[in-house]
């Protein structure tokens, strides 16, 4: 199955990309995908990165084909 992963802010900077489409095999939760994506990246505080699945911040969601996933560093609006 395919999911689109979007990278923002310092995560996009560390990943040197803003978006990619991943081909996943088997069941995977949002949290597992987050670990996999952040694993090789030079990010000091990986705990502070949140994952949204179809704009929903619940990281226990099991991914399904066509999901849009976003890796969100700490918010800095305002």
């Amino acid at each position, binding site marked *: 199955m395919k999911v689109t992963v979007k990278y*923002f802010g310092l995560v996009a900077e560390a990943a040197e990309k803003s978006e990619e489409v991943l081909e996943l095999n088997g069941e995977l939760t949002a949290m597992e995908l987050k670990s996999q994506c952040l694993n090789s990246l030079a990010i000091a505080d990986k705990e*502070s990165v949140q994952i949204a699945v179809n*704009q929903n911040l619940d990281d226990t969601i099991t991914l399904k084909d066509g999901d849009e996933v976003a890796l969100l560093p*700490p918010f800095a*609006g*305002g």
Partner: protein
Amino acid sequence: MDKKKPKKVFVQGAIPPEKIANSVANHQSKTNIGAHSIFLGQIRADEVEGKTVTAIDYTAYEEMAENVFHEIREAAFAKFDITCAHIYHSLGKVNVGELCLFVFTSSAHRKIAIEATNFFVEEIKAKVPVFGKEIFEDETHQWKVNGRHYT
């Protein structure tokens, strides 16, 4: 319903002060309003380890952010008896001294308008996926985190 209509929050670059005057002028025909409460965020020349911030470059997960702004608006209208509410947030580069956030609420009564504006500001800072790259005078940068400097 006017108040339920999704409105575009993001604007490119700094928010010009004239936008505030125009927004206020647009509400002078609404004669049930007794009080307006406005919050403006301005970029500070913070010093970090001897370097000075000269601008913040804002990016966002735009689709999600616009939806979250809309949810915050719905929650505010459910919670407070406000007549109108407007929010504008910058995307892209905003220089020191310029405005990056404009929250504007109106009500018959002052306490309601003031509380609603506070609610918007706190909710926006906590819930909207906006990211800020603080750019220093030497072109280096660091990523801004809400709550670190801005409390």
